[in-house]
């Protein structure tokens, strides 16, 4: 893609840009959730949209996650393209009946009579001192559910481009943002850009090891890669961008070159999504890897509140550096 003019904006602004562009483009796009209207979202990702598009299309809801998600499913079945916000990933628990039992399955179990163009946006992750009930990373839950697509952008550009694709997609997309990342800045094209779901991107080329990472942890991986470069270690960093569909081809091609795989994510390691990537690689052939794969992820504990503990639990760039070195042997 030819690079046009770029703007340096935050992750929140990137989300907002995508929402605004899509609300403009298509009258059937709706936005609702707690505090997304007048207030503009607790992280500012929807500021001004109610004013611009009116209360009919951009709505505040009561604290009713089951209804927020269920209404979105209903409106999608009637041909609208709702974007429902669930204020924290942790409360996707409340919304999961509508997402997992209804949105994901309605098309299949009706023999393809319906389309479900609905997006469930929700910020996850820790690092901001919100403690155990407001810091989870649950991508593994939703990636496990046939019928859903799952996006977890790490850079503003991807956040904007993937969200536009998610809104245009005729399938339910769980769009996972990161609450400690909304102020993170990056270059985003001024021109329209839709980034297809299911296409990984090599964010940094390298020959010594392949690091796969997404969401906020991706930026840690890129930082780690710089540190490692200073020590003469040249890692490739791949961002799958969406976990479902998962672009294994790009990962496999890279691992085929480097022979080393590190997966870094903020979610708990045990039964986390990293295991899927590792497994898909080794299923293809044990000889793809020169060394055992390494996961850099949270230990098996809830997210603690206090900073020393939270920092310890959430993978940091230094942990990824150490993980890469462990993998290099």
């Amino acid at each position, binding site marked *: 893609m030819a690079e046009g003019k770029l703007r340096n904006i935050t992750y929140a602004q990137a989300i907002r840009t995508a929402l605004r562009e899509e609300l403009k483009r298509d009258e059937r796009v709706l936005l609702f959730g707690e505090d997304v209207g007048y207030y503009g979202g607790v992280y500012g990702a929807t500021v001004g949209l109610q004013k611009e598009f009116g209360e009919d299309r951009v709505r505040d809801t009561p604290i009713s996650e089951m209804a927020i998600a269920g209404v979105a499913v209903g409106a999608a079945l009637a041909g609208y393209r709702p974007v429902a916000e669930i204020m924290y990933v942790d409360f996707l628990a409340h919304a999961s009946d509508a997402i997992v039992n209804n949105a994901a399955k309605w098309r299949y179990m009706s023999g393809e*009579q319906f389309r479900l163009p609905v997006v469930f946006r929700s910020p996850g992750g820790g690092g901001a001192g919100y403690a155990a009930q407001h810091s989870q990373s649950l991508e593994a839950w939703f990636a496990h559910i046939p019928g859903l697509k799952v996006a977890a952008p790490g850079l503003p550009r991807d956040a904007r481009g993937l969200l536009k694709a998610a809104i245009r997609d005729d399938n339910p997309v769980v769009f996972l943002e990161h609450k400690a990342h909304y102020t993170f800045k990056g270059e985003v094209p001024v021109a329209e850009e839709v980034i297809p779901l299911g296409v990984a991107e090599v964010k940094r080329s390298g020959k010594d090891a392949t690091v796969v990472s997404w969401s906020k942890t991706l930026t840690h991986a890129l930082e780690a890669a710089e540190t490692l470069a200073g020590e003469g270690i040249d890692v490739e960093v791949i961002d799958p961008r969406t976990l479902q569909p998962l672009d294994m081809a790009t990962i496999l091609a890279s691992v085929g070159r480097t022979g080393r795989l590190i997966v870094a994510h903020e979610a708990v390691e045990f039964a986390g999504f990293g295991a899927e990537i590792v497994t898909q690689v080794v299923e293809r052939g044990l000889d793809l890897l020169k060394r055992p794969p390494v996961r850099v992820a949270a230990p098996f504990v809830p997210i603690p509140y206090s900073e020393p503990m939270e920092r310890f639990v959430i993978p940091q760039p230094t942990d990824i550096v150490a993980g890469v070195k462990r993998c290099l042997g």
Partner: protein
Amino acid sequence: MAVKDRERLLHFYEDMLRIRFFEEQVRDVLYPQRLFRGSSHLAIGQEAVAVGAVHALQAEDYVISTHRGHGHAIAKGLDLQRMFAEIMGRRTGYDRGKGGSMHLADASLNFIGENPVVGSNTPMAAGLALAAKLEGNGRVAAAFLGEGALNTGAFHEAANLAALWSLPVLFLCENNLYAISVPLDKSSALQDLERRAEAYGIPGRRVNGMRVMEVYDAVSSAAEATRERSFPSFLVFDTYRFEGHHTSDKQTYRTQEEALEEFRQRDPIHILEFEMIDDHTVPIPTTIEYRDRIRAEVDAAFEAALAEPWPAPEDALTGVYAEGGE
């Protein structure tokens, strides 16, 4: 009785018979012959609600149903053969064999489908109604729910939201006194079910669910109000399920006498027949003709469905995602 009213009544009668005979076919033929899998929840006894309510709606109105939805589907005009085919898992069924008895849907008839997750259809109905309201197309969305579903958080959230946003939703609650084995007095703190939506400013109305014209009249006026004011309505129909919760329910939680006695006194089809005969709408032989004709129609649909092809095993792999988008 005006000719038009007489025709309407006979039309209701036909549909009630259709439901009854369809369900009897499931109970007496499909179940013993193991022609379907999982469970099938029969609506025998609740025909007047399905028919009276759905016929009070327009064809464009959305209906979203429950696990006990064969009756709603038939009243909405679904094809019996394709229903049987689906229940028997055939490729030609409504859902290509992927849904079965609990997931019948016909998008073309605005029968959004059955949702057997109790209560879970109510927020969806609010969403359908939101779409109708935004579209300004004058449609309403009707959600059926059992009295057991009143206790789900989903219903509460949906009712509050529907009232708050002034959405044209009809919450149609079929109080058949049981949720599986649990009787009403063990599930709802309040027995005046019509008051269960007052907390959202939605006045409720209790209706005899065994008299099809009462159901029709109540839903007609509720639908009119809901359509005009764009505001939810809540109706509770007193009815009874004469069969078990599903086809293999042993019904240890009630006596056979209870069910029989209810049946003798409250069967909505008998009630309608008596009335029609009594007021000379139809003579007895005509009811027999109707019964024979509809029975034959149901039988034919079943026989035709029975001859239909099975899906291939690999058909399971398709249809998860829609291609494309905008």
